[in-house]
């Protein structure tokens, strides 16, 4: 363009010089402005070229290189996965137990509110749970921010949105939701409004849950089984009503892996409103409460006596009359007034016999044995509520004897069932866990052997006999070979025991020929009724509850029942599992001499 114009301009000036006729002069005179114009044109051209270059460059940058932003975004949101603040908790079958759901929280920016009076009226009309004065105060205060209500339901969110009030806005938040409501409240616990775990598993594994949430699809797989939990919860609730008990606790544990399938403490409370519940509801009887669990401890005494070879199955103890030790008298609840052998001590739950057995073992060995079973220290359990057992500081002979039948030592029900599982699973220490763990705690896997396999076999036989012939008859669940031990203890109060306030316990396992699951039922202050002829002992309330639980959960857990015909005829079968034989034969009171 500029080239063109220069040329035409030059042509015109040539014509002009011809007209004047003075070529030299005109050429010199005309050369000056021509040079100036050329320079100007060049500068202008250069500026324009530069501008166009910049524009062109920008165009190229925008159209060709501008994709960086979207590429980055794609890289960031690989898969566009939903990220939450806290990981989900699921049970062993993948059923959702706790999750975070998006919710909206209402807040107010007072500086944008036009009419605080009107706003308060309108808000109260859709959120009747709030107080009008409070909203008015927040809406008319100085400042930029105040929460009105956290975690609105979708309906409330919609209703407030429809009011269209200036100054009121929503903040997206997450709310912890427990689809099963109160069913798992003593196991999972609950979280606060800021998604911080405040109790139970939520509190104990708070950091793990937050870290898991960062990984896509990360969730916490627990050992719990919602079906088993429901059965335990339902049966305990019914028992609390039936026996007018103050509370109850129930635990189901896998005796080989230590996995806790169900853990309940009643009464319980809503995980959404822990603040409005009573202290007795929030108290976890299964893991935090320590109790003198009475005769169930005779299992430990017997196992200990057999393990240290202090007695064998045929040894007898004098239970003809109450035993006087120092200023104490030890009596039997089911007095037989005769000499009892070890199995009879278990079957009739003889305090006198157990006390003598414990005395024969001695304080030192008893203390060591209970310590190895984990009875003297808090369990490493994944809950914020872990009770510390109470044991005598000075372990004298009288302590040894009372501990022999479960008095003078207080442990949590979880301690009891873990120790019990250890006795009957072949003798490997069972450490309870709430997290799914499929590897059985065997010696090869680093499991600690507490008692010999033979002692464990004897214990299984004895446990089965208690249910077949002894105080635990009502715990029988047809076909599932339940074995276990009753425990009825008077509640300790300041300076003594309350006569009519009992803690009744039944701890059992099934099937006794090859135990897979242990179950514990504890009732707090149950009362007798017509059906129990007024008796309030464990054999009358805790035992039948356990039987009902077992008969419902065993089919769920895939435990094959022993068929009615084969129970009678298989004794002569050589291929039969030896231990199975042992239990059945001993159950009928035959092969006893073999011990």
């Amino acid at each position, binding site marked *: 363009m500029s080239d063109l114009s220069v040329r035409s301009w030059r042509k015109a000036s040539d014509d002009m010089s011809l007209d004047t006729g003075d070529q030299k002069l005109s050429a010199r005179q005309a050369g000056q402005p021509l040079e100036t114009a050329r320079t100007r044109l060049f500068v202008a051209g250069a500026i324009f070229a530069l501008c166009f270059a910049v524009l062109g460059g920008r165009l190229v940058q*925008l*159209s060709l290189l501008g994709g960086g932003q979207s590429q980055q*975004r794609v890289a960031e949101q690989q898969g*566009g996965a*939903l990220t939450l603040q806290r990981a989900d908790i699921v049970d062993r079958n993948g059923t959702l137990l706790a999750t975070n759901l998006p919710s909206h929280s209402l807040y107010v920016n007072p500086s944008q509110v036009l009419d605080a009076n009107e706003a308060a009226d309108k808000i109260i009309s859709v959120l009747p749970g709030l107080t009008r004065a409070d909203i008015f105060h927040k809406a008319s205060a100085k400042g930029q921010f105040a929460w009105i209500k956290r975690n609105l339901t979708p309906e409330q969110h919609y209703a407030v949105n429809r009011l269209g009030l200036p100054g009121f806005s929503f903040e997206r938040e997450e709310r912890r939701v427990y689809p099963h409501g109160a069913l798992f409240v003593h196991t999972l616990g609950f979280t606060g409004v800021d998604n911080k775990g405040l109790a139970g598993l939520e509190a104990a594994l708070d950091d793990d849950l937050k870290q898991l949430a960062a990984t896509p699809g990360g969730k916490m797989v627990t050992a719990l089984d919602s079906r088993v939990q429901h059965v335990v919860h339902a049966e305990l609730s019914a028992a609390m009503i039936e026996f007018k008990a103050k509370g109850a606790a129930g635990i189901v544990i896998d005796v080989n892996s230590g996995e806790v399938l169900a853990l309940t403490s009643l009464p319980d409370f809503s995980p959404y409103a822990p603040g409005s519940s009573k202290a007795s509801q929030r108290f976890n009887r299964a893991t935090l409460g320590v109790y003198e669990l009475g005769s169930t401890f005779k299992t430990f005494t017997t196992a200990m006596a057999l393990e240290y070879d202090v007695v064998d199955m045929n040894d007898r103890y004098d239970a003809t009359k109450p035993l006087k030790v120092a200023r104490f008298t030890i009596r039997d609840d089911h007095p037989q007034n005769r000499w009892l052998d070890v199995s009879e001590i278990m079957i009739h739950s003889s305090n006198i016999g157990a006390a003598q057995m414990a005395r024969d073992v001695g304080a030192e060995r008893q203390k060591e044995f209970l310590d190895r079973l984990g009875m003297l220290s808090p369990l490493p359990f994944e809950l914020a509520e872990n009770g510390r057992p109470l044991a005598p500081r000075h372990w004298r002979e009288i302590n040894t004897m009372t501990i022999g039948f479960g008095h003078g030592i207080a442990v949590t029900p979880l301690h009891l069932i873990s120790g019990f599982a250890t006795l009957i699973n072949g003798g490997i220490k069972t450490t309870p866990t709430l997290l799914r763990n499929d590897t059985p705690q065997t010696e090869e896997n680093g499991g600690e052997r507490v008692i010999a396999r033979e002692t464990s076999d004897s214990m299984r036989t004895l446990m089965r006999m208690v249910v077949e012939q002894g105080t635990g008859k009502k715990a029988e669940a047809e076909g599932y070979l339940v074995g276990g031990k009753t425990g009825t203890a008077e509640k300790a109060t300041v300076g003594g025991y309350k006569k009519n306030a009992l803690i009744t316990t039944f701890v059992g396992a099934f099937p006794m020929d090859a135990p897979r699951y242990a179950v514990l039922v504890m009732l707090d202050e149950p009362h007798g009724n017509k059906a129990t002829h007024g008796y309030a002992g464990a054999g009358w309330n805790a035992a039948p509850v356990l039987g009902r639980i077992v008969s419902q959960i065993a089919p769920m857990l895939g435990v094959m029942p022993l*068929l*009615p015909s*084969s129970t009678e005829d298989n004794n002569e079968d050589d291929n039969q599992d030896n231990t199975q034989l042992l239990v059945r034969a001993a159950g009928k009171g035959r092969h006893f001499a073999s011990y």
Partner: protein
Amino acid sequence: MNRPALILWIGLPAIVTIALLLVSYQVKGLESELAELEHAALTQQEEIHVLNAEWSFLNRPERLARLAKRHLDLAPVAPKQLITFSYEPLANDLAAQDFAAQNIVMQNLVTHSLITKGLAQ
């Protein structure tokens, strides 16, 4: 310079510019589509998440037990409802150890259970 060159030098940038603009708009369109899809995916994931919670809520064992009691004639499995191949009355049949024998056993089992239920003779 001649006329074709002029046309070329003016025309080419024009075409390139227009093409670039078109591509640029297309990219922008695709980007917003991507954002929309991402948003939709996220929304759906959130919905699935909520539905999962609802599914778990509706599958509460307590609720299922209540509904089953009201609408179904089901009860926990009783031991006598289960049978194995080692069951004595069937043990002789099983000794044959071939599929034909097992089929007969299965048939016997079914008939046996139907008879006990009063559904067959």
